[in-house]
């Protein structure tokens, strides 16, 4: 045991949902709940009210029946009683009728031919018949009984459920619409933030910024992200310039600002590669200052440096576009003339450099100095097809030139 508690890895949730889906589900849930609640309330209230109406309906039917069968009871006439009940049989919601005479013996009765749609509901709501006493001039001559059934209730419940279903449908559509609105209002700004963050992370686009957003909290988040991006961009810029400076420093000579030996080696191998590929030619000029040591000794190191800077400037002036010059040693320069076409002669270029360099240089002490250089030319692929061979050939040619100059 090391005594260190390893940080448990953050558990990733397997299936992720989108904000839109979440909102949609949430909306649907709430709306469903509201619809169900109100629907249930209305249904219950409706059933209660309807039950009241059904009771009243049966009571009225019983009264009507009592009026209709009264003479039938007086004359003890079963046929007339049936006729008296006739109007009642056309009233919906009545299951059974019975007329009793004054001693409680049934005179006539009628049962609806229609089957009870829900016997359970009938048992619950219409367990007992409505009984109305039939009187003639104040004395009881009989009783009429009316049993209700659930047909009217069932109709209401059916319509209620249908309406509920319709409401649910509307709810579903409404929810989709609301979710769309929410997506537009909420998810879109969030997506914008996410896109910017993604772009910055993946493509290093530190110039990207979150647009101003309509929702205060998200706008604040966007503002913070923008501020963070500002800082990141600052750091990034600083780092890049630092890196460029370091790279320049690594590949350039600090005095003359010309590419150094390392940069030249790299450049040379590139040129060999490219010329080899296309079957072209180029020239390598090895330039060495004559008697530079003497100048250094006679006028001092500051003058020597001034001569070197002047030399490098003169050499650069003679270059064409695409040519390359480097300072590879104390007073040694290299020029790559690339491409070397048929008309351009390497020797002419060497002479141009000699002429350009020969112009007097004004030294810091006020004196003038006339520099001279030895130039050796090597051609690719004539004098060598690799860097070492070319350099050796150029070096040898330069040395030969130096010897010639000395003997002059």
């Amino acid at each position, binding site marked *: 045991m090391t005594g260190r508690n390893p940080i448990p890895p953050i558990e990733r949730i397997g299936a992720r949902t989108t904000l839109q889906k979440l909102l949609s589900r949430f909306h649907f849930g709430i709306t469903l709940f509201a619809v169900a609640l109100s629907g249930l309330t209305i249904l219950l209230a409706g059933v209660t009210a309807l039950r009241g109406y059904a009771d009243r309906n049966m009571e009225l039917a019983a009264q009507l029946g009592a*009026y209709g069968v009264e003479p039938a009871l007086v004359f003890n006439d079963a046929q007339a009683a049936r006729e008296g009940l006739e109007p009642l049989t056309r009233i919906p919601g009545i299951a059974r009728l019975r007329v009793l005479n004054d001693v409680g013996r049934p005179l006539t009765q009628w049962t609806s031919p229609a089957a009870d749609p829900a016997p359970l509901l009938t048992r619950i709501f219409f367990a007992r018949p409505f009984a109305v006493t039939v009187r003639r*001039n104040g004395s009881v*001559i009989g009783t009429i009984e009316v049993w209700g059934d659930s047909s009217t209730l069932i109709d209401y419940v059916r319509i209620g459920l249908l309406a509920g279903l319709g409401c649910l449908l509307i709810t579903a559509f409404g929810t989709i619409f609301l979710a769309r609105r929410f997506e537009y209002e909420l998810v879109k700004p969030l997506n914008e933030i996410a896109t910017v963050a993604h772009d910055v992370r993946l493509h290093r686009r530190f110039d990207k910024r979150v647009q101003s957003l309509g929702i205060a909290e998200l706008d604040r988040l966007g503002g913070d992200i923008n501020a963070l991006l500002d800082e990141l961009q600052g750091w990034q810029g600083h780092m890049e310039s630092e890196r460029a400076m370091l790279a320049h420093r690594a590949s350039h000579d600090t005095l003359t600002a010309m590419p150094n030996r390392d940069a030249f080696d790299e450049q040379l191998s590139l040129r060999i590669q490219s010329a080899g590929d296309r079957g072209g030619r180029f020239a390598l000029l090895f330039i060495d200052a004559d008697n530079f040591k003497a100048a250094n000794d006679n006028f001092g190191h500051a003058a020597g440096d001034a001569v070197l800077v002047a030399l490098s400037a003169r050499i650069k002036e003679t270059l064409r576009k695409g040519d390359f010059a480097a300072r590879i040693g104390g007073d040694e320069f290299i020029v790559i003339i690339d491409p070397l076409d048929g008309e351009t002669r390497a020797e002419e270029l060497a002479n141009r450099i000699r002429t350009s360099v020969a112009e007097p240089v004004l030294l810091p002490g006020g004196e003038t100095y006339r520099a001279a250089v030895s130039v050796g030319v090597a051609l690719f692929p004539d004098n060598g097809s690799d860097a070492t061979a070319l350099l050796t050939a150029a070096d040898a040619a330069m040395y030969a030139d130096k010897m010639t100059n000395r003997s002059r």
Partner: protein
Amino acid sequence: MAVQAAGQTIVEDGAGGMTRAVNRMVGGIVSYARWPDGSSATTRVMCLVGTPRLSDRMTPDVPGPGSVAVRRMNAAAVTPDCDILFLGRMPVADRRQLIAWVRGRPVLTITDDDAACIYGAMFCLNNKAGSLSFSVNIDAIGRGPLRIDPRVLRIGGGGGGV
């Protein structure tokens, strides 16, 4: 002449069955008649003329308050005191004279000697196949100031009104 077919009243078996049925039917008819002068609670005078065919013991049984006092008399003795005229078997001339006398007066006429109900009485009792029924002569009722509950007319109509 609009004569309605009869309703059917159940007649109990036994000696007094028919008498009870007749008294109940006559009482019922009386209870559904409205005289222009007053309430149903008063005692109505029933003048019995001729010989009743269905029952000799006429004591109409009116449901609720109100009652019927029966007086037997001959056709000549009929006075305006009579609220109800029960016409038993009698000579045709007497019957015609009585019907003519009733016209325009608030007098209820009931007979048990006119099965077809064509001789001008308002209500005609009829014993047929062991059951008692009555018919209504709408024209006779229409001639007088007496008002009859339409429900009774319907029963007397035997389904004719449906």
